[in-house]
């Protein structure tokens, strides 16, 4: 099957404007601007069933239809912060198939009548931003960006903006704060960005992969997109496969492909002849799944992964082999979340700090069995009390690992008697 998103793997030099145009590039944008009303574009995206690829899986067309048409101007912001441990798909899209992404951003902007769009990239993507700047300049030169596009009165400009090292800026309201020149700390919601976004104006924030799906959807129609994937999770998805597999990398597969197919057929199985122990389907923010046959045969779509006790999220599948103890895995995630908590609310700021400390004790063999219960109870206290989802994310691996891999934790703790 040829790729819908990773088309550069089928077409050499697709990152050159002339090659992209030769292969039908910007036909969808032209069609949208010259032959479709903005509402019709949104309607096709709704029909396609496309859901946000940044993690939350919110229906994209529905989000666009929420834009407040009584408040102007409108903005569209592409979320290229890609900082979830285990996620490296947006980077490949921007580096290798940049024009399809930018065309998707342009179509989204037309659909919500925005004349200005931003790409917010994590600071480490400095070379990617410079490359996109060059692509944007070429698009302006060729008449795909600027004033009076395709002879209409629609105009659009796209700008890049670099973050500077803060995972929380991937959260859409923190991202908007950061873009406004503030510290990247989440806003209280509602109001949501489609009514109150950048500079307080109606704004659509979409992930890079989400937007890259848009040109083929407009070109072939929403119904066509539904021929991939499952009824409730239509379409194709990029899976970033990492950890202890032979062939880590990005794989474009229909939603609903099983973990087994991804890990063993595409990923070449587990490295060094080890056995598979656990899977984190959504990066460090995942509930951890034991790699049982039931789990391995689970289709990777939003509903099925939830049904076995985790979430698909951004589909950053981290595979862990049987040489690792889960208390160490949890410890790694807690160092991450402690570092990345933005500090705005107490349960998350203090909770990640305490969880990390208790987890350090366990992993270093300085803890008693009571510390396992303590770790779990701190995690449970954070839940439901945090301003943004980061607080929640920080507890996922903790609670599920203790529940599903308790032996790993107990093996690390001392009994009270031995202590004496």
């Amino acid at each position, binding site marked *: 099957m040829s790729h819908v998103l990773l088309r550069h793997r089928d077409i050499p030099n697709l990152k050159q404007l002339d090659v992209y145009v030769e292969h039908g590039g910007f036909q969808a944008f032209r069609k949208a601007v010259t032959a479709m009303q903005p509402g019709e574009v949104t309607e096709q995206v709704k029909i396609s069933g496309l859901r946000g690829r940044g993690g939350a899986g919110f229906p994209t067309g529905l989000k666009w239809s929420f834009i407040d048409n009584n408040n102007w101007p409108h903005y569209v912001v592409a979320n290229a912060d890609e900082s979830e441990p285990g996620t*490296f798909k947006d980077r490949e899209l921007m580096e290798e198939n940049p024009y399809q992404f930018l065309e998707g951003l342009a179509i989204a902007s037309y659909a919500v009548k925005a004349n200005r769009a931003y790409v917010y990239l994590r600071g480490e993507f400095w070379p990617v931003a410079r490359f996109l700047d060059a692509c944007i300049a070429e698009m302006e030169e060729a008449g795909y960006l600027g004033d009076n596009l395709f002879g209409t009165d629609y105009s659009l400009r796209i700008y890049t903006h670099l973050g500077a090292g803060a995972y929380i800026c991937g959260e859409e309201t923190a991202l908007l704060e950061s873009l*406004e020149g503030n510290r990247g700390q989440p806003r209280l919601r509602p109001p949501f960005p489609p009514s109150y976004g950048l500079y307080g104006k109606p704004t659509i924030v979409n992930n890079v992969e989400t937007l890259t799906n848009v040109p083929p959807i407009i070109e072939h129609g929403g119904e066509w997109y539904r021929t991939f994937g499952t009824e409730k999770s239509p379409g194709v998805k990029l899976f970033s496969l990492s950890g202890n597999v032979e062939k880590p990398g990005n794989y474009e597969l229909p939603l609903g492909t099983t973990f087994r197919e991804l890990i063993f057929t595409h990923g070449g199985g587990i490295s060094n002849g080890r056995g598979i122990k656990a899977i984190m389907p959504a990066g460090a923010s995942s509930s951890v799944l034991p790699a049982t046959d039931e789990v391995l045969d689970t289709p990777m779509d939003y509903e099925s992964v939830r049904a076995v006790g985790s979430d698909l999220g951004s589909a950053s599948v981290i595979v862990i082999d049987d040489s690792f103890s889960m208390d160490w895995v949890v410890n790694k995630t807690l160092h991450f979340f402690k570092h990345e908590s933005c500090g705005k609310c107490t349960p998350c700021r203090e909770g990640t700090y305490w969880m990390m400390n208790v987890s350090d004790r366990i992993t270093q063999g300085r803890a008693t069995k009571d510390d396992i219960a303590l770790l779990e109870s701190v995690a449970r206290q954070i839940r439901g009390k945090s301003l943004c989802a980061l607080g929640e994310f920080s507890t996922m691996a903790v609670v599920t690992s203790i529940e599903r891999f308790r032996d790993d934790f107990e093996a690390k703790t001392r009994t009270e008697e031995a202590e004496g």
Partner: protein
Amino acid sequence: MNRLLAQYPQQVKDILAKYPPEHKRSAVMPLLYLAQGDKMHITRQDLTDVGEICGMTETEVESIVGFYTLYHEEPGGKFRIQVCTDLPCALRGAEEFYAGLCERLGVEDGGTTEDGLITVEQVKCLAACHRAPMLQVQSGHGLDYHENLTVDLAMEIIDGLRQAARTEKKEAQA
């Protein structure tokens, strides 16, 4: 006098042009990168200069510098070698790689080499997990990724940086 305006008038203008004129504050992050530049840290004067251009107080600019990890308040090496030791990379040996690199450079975690050129530190996921072990080099010229590394390969990269620094110094003296 505003050093940024004097030294980089065109860059400042290009940065400001990216944002609506009434929202100059949005320019604070790119301006801080510009100010940090080659010297690889932000000074008091930078805070004043950046604040003056985008309409912020020194304290406000300082709070931005403090929030984001890629701005440095303390002088460090000319090159910052940032090794990812986050979970997916650690599963593929990044912690051993980092320890080996520190040993070869004769520095502790977070330390700077004797020649003052190289600072090594551990960082979180850099979106390159499938090519672990990996590191990025942050310098005044921006950021570069180096992937699928061994300690030997990393040392070659570092030798290259040292070589470049020597050439630059000679050129500056000439």
